[in-house]
């Protein structure tokens, strides 16, 4: 699949956006390390959906927006992007801090989204345990902490495979911007659950890998509790990246939730996951 790079103007900022696939648009908000690359799960869903992947300002490709002070600001910025591009209401899938951004957008304007998928979302303080302080470990260790299995398929091809000086530079940009936005409190906003509690009528699927070392289970559960009708699916064996660690189950859950038609061969080999209501 060929990824097309576009530049979208938002409030004078040139947002680099990647697009791939065909069909109804699906907004993808990448995690705090940046866009990890076009993975097999993207490929499968792209048969029926057109991915729209903005590269977060300050992460190396899209310039930094100097008025950003919080993840809420990023959400407001992306909300403007959606309104001005006429894209919404749209389905969204957000990973980790990208899930937090999606939640901020939903909290301010649920009408932006048709359906929302939050994968191992950060942004709400877990009742138990703490979000991994990934700014207190080296970049390499941070990347490795996102999977439960260091031999996970596709891990070696993520972020261009290996850690070159250029990739270090991009990681540093991503981590610096994340630090700017969420150093304190670290990776959560205590007001977010209260703001989300008022949201009605937004179909939400939360996916969490049972071996997640970055986001404790309490993060996912907190979202489920505050978003009315949200469904939580726990994938056994997977870490913070269920989309590569148990791709089949991940694709199955997401495609079903987003009512996406899969290529025939993807429907075989179903695995189990635990549905939590």
């Amino acid at each position, binding site marked *: 699949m060929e990824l097309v790079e576009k530049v979208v103007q938002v409030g004078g900022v040139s947002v680099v956006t990647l697009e791939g696939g065909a069909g109804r648009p699906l907004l993808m908000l990448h995690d705090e390390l940046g866009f990890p690359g076009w993975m097999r799960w993207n490929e499968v869903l792209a048969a029926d959906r057109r991915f729209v992947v903005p590269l977060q300002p300050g992460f190396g490709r899209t310039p930094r927006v100097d008025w950003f002070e919080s993840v809420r600001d990023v959400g407001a910025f992306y909300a403007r992007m959606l309104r001005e591009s006429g894209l919404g209401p749209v389905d969204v899938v957000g990973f980790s801090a990208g899930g937090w951004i999606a939640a901020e957008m939903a909290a301010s304007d649920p009408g932006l989204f048709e359906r929302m998928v939050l994968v191992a979302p950060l942004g709400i303080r877990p009742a138990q345990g703490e979000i991994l302080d990934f700014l207190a470990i*080296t970049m390499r260790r941070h990347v490795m902490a996102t999977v439960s299995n260091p031999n996970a398929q596709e891990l070696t091809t993520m972020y261009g495979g290996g850690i070159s000086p250029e990739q270090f530079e991009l990681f540093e940009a991503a981590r610096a911007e994340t630090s700017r936005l969420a150093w304190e409190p670290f990776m959560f906003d205590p007001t977010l659950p209260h703001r989300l509690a008022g949201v009605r009528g937004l179909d939400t699927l939360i996916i969490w890998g049972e071996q997640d070392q970055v986001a404790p289970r309490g993060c996912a559960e907190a979202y489920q509790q505050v978003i009315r009708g949200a469904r939580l699916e726990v994938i056994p064996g997977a870490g913070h990246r269920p989309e590569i660690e148990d791709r089949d189950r991940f694709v199955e859950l997401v495609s079903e939730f987003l009512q996406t038609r899969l290529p025939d061969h993807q429907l075989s080999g179903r695995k189990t996951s635990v549905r939590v209501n």
Partner: protein
Amino acid sequence: MQFNYITERPYRGLTEDQIYEHGSFFTYPNSAFDAQRGSDDYNAYLDEAVLAEQVGFDGVALNEHHGNPFCMGAVLNVEAAVLARITERVKIVLIGNPIPVSRNPLRLAEELAMIDLISKGRLVPGWVRGSGPEQFFNNINPAYNRELFEEGHDVIVQAWTRPGPWRYEGKHFHYRHVNPWALPFQKPIPPTIIPGFLSRETAQWAVAHSYPYLGLGGPLKPNADLSDFYADEFAARGLQAGPENFGHVVFVYVDETTERAQEIGRALLFAGGNANFAKAQHTLPAGYNSPAAIKRLASVPQGGWLGVTKERLDEEKVDIKAASIAESRRRTAANYQKMQENLQIVVGTPEEVTTKLKTVLRCLRPGMLFLMSPFGNVSNEDRRRSIRLLGEQVLPPLRVEAQRLELTDMFQRAPGSVALAPGQPRAPVVDRIAIDKHNATLVA
């Protein structure tokens, strides 16, 4: 020429093995802290400053680190306040207050004004960004470190110089009532110095404010390159830099015999700046450096100061144990020799040390020299003997040499007071021939 005594305030209750095994000073569990030991150490270092004054030093300097047993000086203004009262003549040089870490520049302005008043005008403030661990310890967002530093500095200088009361609404700081009652003894502001470790960004900032730059270490040539960079930037402002614009730190231990000095001087390596005693994830918090600087670090296979090497950036484990303790010891020993050859560390008898420090003065032409005592578990007796030998046998010949080299300091001639005529090339600020000559002896 101004000679300053400085020491980290090492906690002398931990062995090298303990630090090697833990992998760093920072994060060493404070359950190992013994209050009696800490009390004795703090008092011993204050007494040393008094001794330094007695034996002829012109200044005593302080720095600060947080949560770090190699430097117990966590709030240097507390110690500076004590020195303001128990010393009489020496300058009290702060190298320096980490502005971002304080979170409250107006309070810093008040603290320093009090110290300057109590010392009757002997304070030399210095401003730093604070190293990586300082950001973690105080939970200061490293991505805003430089902004906090620059804005905080401006708040302090304004608080000292602009008649109050006034209101301040900045980006990071906001005050509805700026009107500190106690203002500095020295006008318009106390003479200020900016420490840095070969940082061009910091040197550039110092130039913009006509502050002298204090090189915190490193070999001769990189320091000379930094001085030339500073002097070029200064010249671009139409000003001639001189020795009054530069300070330099050397790690020093003096004893009666070469053998004893070499043995005890090893403790000069037992400090947090040594790559074997610091961890990259604390040294380089996200956003503290530019992404381009990280890329440069990731491209250089060696390196090693401040705990940062390519290997460490690429480290998979949180606990860095890539090298065995034996290997770390071997590296530390190799560094000891190399840093002596580079004149970063100078140990020996008074004669040996004098000869080497004269070379440093000739090569780098600083107006201020800072002589740093050993870290680690060196006894009071040994430490005080070194200070005495420095004052009585090393400083006198160095003063003669400084006079010969016309090394004016910032108190004799204000940095930025010498104008450069338009089109006139600036005069040299370092002696490249002397540096080449010294470096040639290393190759041989």
